[in-house]
């Protein structure tokens, strides 16, 4: 019974001991080290059970050829349960003997690890700055892959010689294509196809040590096949070339046909009686004949002026105009001074005859003028008489009547002295074509010549008070003129011939500016 109790007690006590047990720690397990740049290294251990109590871990090491046991210089930098060996404490090609001791309140435990050569634990960081550029030139595209060595690796002194390895895979494929690079930091990967997406990774190792982890994946897409485009454009080019060539063929070989189509000959002008060929080859006369159609035109006559204006010619003041000469219309009058000898003779006696003859000669053309001629002599006898009486030489009215209608009265323009304005002609007294022996009187009567003498303006007729402009022959004239001023101008219609023939003259001579001589 008691033995049973004792066993039960033992069991209970042992159970109690197990449940609330704290014990010495277990020795650490798993030891691993790593050198990232072949200058320093770190080691980690896996702690065993700590026995429920806070446990302290310490590392002691010994180096081959170096006497003495040393403790880990840095427990912190590499993390928990680690030891970091800096440059001073790192020796290559030398064996490290590590001892890790776990200690807690109840005891301690230790484990020993051997590192034959730290060189065996060199594992660098992956390469950095990996860039992939798609090069689409040349016959086929390729990837230009570039990278840089890990930053903490010292290549410059030659202490470390990194070697690289890269791998490329299609995005949807499972297999990687791996390439050993060597020491260079670039590579052109040619085994790619158009239109696919590729993944690229690079890793490195130092001095035949362990390979680093693969770098970050870089994606690169090859653009689509340009050859299809090229074929397409070749196709288009060829097909567009065919119509071009046919067009050129047509243009070159069928020149004439094309010419006729595009540039039809312009139809020549069709004129009756005109022979085109004759025009081309013929003489000018023929051309003219052809054009005019062989019509016979009468020869052109010399231009004769058809006077519509009336000329009043008078060589004296006594020149009278009867109302018969009153014309209906008013037109420009060319008043020729008495001194005008348009082929008129200033002979008192014969003047009429001459004038008449002259008039007649010039009157051949106008029928209407003949009327005036006929009527003239009837109205002019008075002047005639007066003329005979004195020295005055005047052209009888009838004789002075020039066929005003016709400008040709002024056939001989050589007598024209001056054109003053456009209504008056001042003619010089020149040789009388009829060779008169009479005293040539220079009579100049220009109506607008000297407007200071103008006494009165009746309608558009200007009455002059002749001054000294007249020659001696006209002295009396002057007197008459002066006398006349007092008298009223009498219209020619009155046909009263009084003493003051001059007045009448005045009245008539210049009055009838127009009407009496209108010729239609």
């Amino acid at each position, binding site marked *: 019974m008691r033995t049973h109790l004792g066993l039960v007690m033992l069991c209970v006590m042992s159970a109690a001991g197990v449940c609330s047990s704290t014990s010495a720690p277990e020795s650490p397990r798993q*030891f691993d080290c790593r050198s990232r740049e*072949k*200058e320093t290294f770190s080691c980690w251990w896996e702690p065993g059970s700590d026995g429920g109590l806070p446990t302290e871990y310490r590392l002691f090491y*010994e180096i*081959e*050829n170096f006497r003495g046991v040393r403790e880990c210089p840095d427990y912190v930098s590499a993390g928990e349960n680690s030891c970091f060996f800096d*440059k001073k404490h*790192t*020796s*290559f*090609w*030398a*064996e490290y*003997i590590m001892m890790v001791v776990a200690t807690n309140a109840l005891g301690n435990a230790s484990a*020993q*690890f*051997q590192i*034959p*050569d730290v*060189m065996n634990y060199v594992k660098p960081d992956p390469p950095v700055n990996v860039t992939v550029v798609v090069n689409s030139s040349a016959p086929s595209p390729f990837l230009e892959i570039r990278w840089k060595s890990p930053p903490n690796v*010292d*290549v*410059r*002194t*030659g*202490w470390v*010689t990194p070697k690289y390895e890269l791998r490329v895979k299609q995005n949807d494929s499972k297999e990687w294509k791996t390439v050993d690079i060597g020491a260079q930091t670039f590579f052109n990967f040619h085994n790619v196809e158009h239109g696919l997406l590729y993944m690229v990774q690079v890793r490195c190792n130092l*001095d*035949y040590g362990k390979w680093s982890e693969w770098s970050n994946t870089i994606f690169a897409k090859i653009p689509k096949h340009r050859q299809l485009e090229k074929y397409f454009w070749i196709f288009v080019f060829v097909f567009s070339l065919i119509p071009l060539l046919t067009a050129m063929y047509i243009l070159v070989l069928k020149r004439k046909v094309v010419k006729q189509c595009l540039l039809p000959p312009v139809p020549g002008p069709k004129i009756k009686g005109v022979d085109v060929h004759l025009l081309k080859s013929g003489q000018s006369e023929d051309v003219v004949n052809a054009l005019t159609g062989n019509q016979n035109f009468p020869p052109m006559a010399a231009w004769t002026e058809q006077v519509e204006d009336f000329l009043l010619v008078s060589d004296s003041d006594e020149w009278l105009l009867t109302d018969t000469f009153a014309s209906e219309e008013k037109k420009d009058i060319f008043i020729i001074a008495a001194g005008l000898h348009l082929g008129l003779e200033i002979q008192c006696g014969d003047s009429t005859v001459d004038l008449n003859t002259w008039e007649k000669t010039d009157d051949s053309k106008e029928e209407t003028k003949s009327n005036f001629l006929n009527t003239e002599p009837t109205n002019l006898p008075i002047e005639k008489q007066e003329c005979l009486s004195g020295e005055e030489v005047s052209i009888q009215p009838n004789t002075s009547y020039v066929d005003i209608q016709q400008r040709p009265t002024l056939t001989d323009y050589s007598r024209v002295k001056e054109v003053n304005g456009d209504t008056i002609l001042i003619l010089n007294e020149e040789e009388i074509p009829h060779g008169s022996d009479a005293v040539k009187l220079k009579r100049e009567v220009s109506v607008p010549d000297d407007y200071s003498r103008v006494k009165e303006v009746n309608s558009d007729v200007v009455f002059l008070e002749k001054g000294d402009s007249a020659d001696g022959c006209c002295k009396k004239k002057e007197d008459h003129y002066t006398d006349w001023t007092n008298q009223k101008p009498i219209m020619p219609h009155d046909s009263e011939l009084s003493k003051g023939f001059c007045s009448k003259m005045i009245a008539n001579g210049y009055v009838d500016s127009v009407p009496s001589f209108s010729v239609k």
Partner: protein
Amino acid sequence: MSAHIRPVSPLLVVLIYLALCSRLSSMRAASSCTNGQTGCHFLSLANLFDRVIQHSARMHGISNDLHSEFELYFLPSKNQIGRVSRNCHTSTILTPNGKENAQRIAREELTEVILKLLVAWREPLWHFHQNMAQHHEFNNFSSNKSLEMSDMVHELRRGVQKVVEKMQMLGVISSSLGNLASPEALLASDRAEWRLMNDYDLLYCFRRDSNKIQNYLKILKCRIVPEHGC
């Protein structure tokens, strides 16, 4: 006829002279590059260094492969307790064990270390190869590698000696290494210590030393001719 030749002949003479001159100058340039000018020499020194470094890298690679193979065959425990230090026969040679140390050490000293190492391993490797050939459990691949390795050590030592001569000629290092070049002086120091090592330890030691040689050569090159790829 003679009238035409006269103006032409001096031209011909001049042309021929120029051609000859250019040829001569190019030849001189080639010859001077090996003997004369400094710039050319440093370029050739850098080339020599590259060659020996490549050689040493290859040697280290082979030693690494052999060591890995031996590990497969013999499976030694990785975390052996109790083996504080390996008995490498080259342990007596003081070698810089880090970058700073290698940078600080004198050029001559560094060169001496390299040469010592190379000399020390010539005989042991030859013997190792002999053992490999006799033991048929090793495949041909390993046997070929051991032979290659032993040859490489010998070739590399001769290459490094040439580099030293060049450096001494250029005045980069002093001429005090003259006595070191003789193998007899080196061999006197390590007689039979290497015979005590087993093959695995030998391969392990050589793997370590070849790595040292490679690193030291690289550091030496970057100290002497840094502008040519460092």
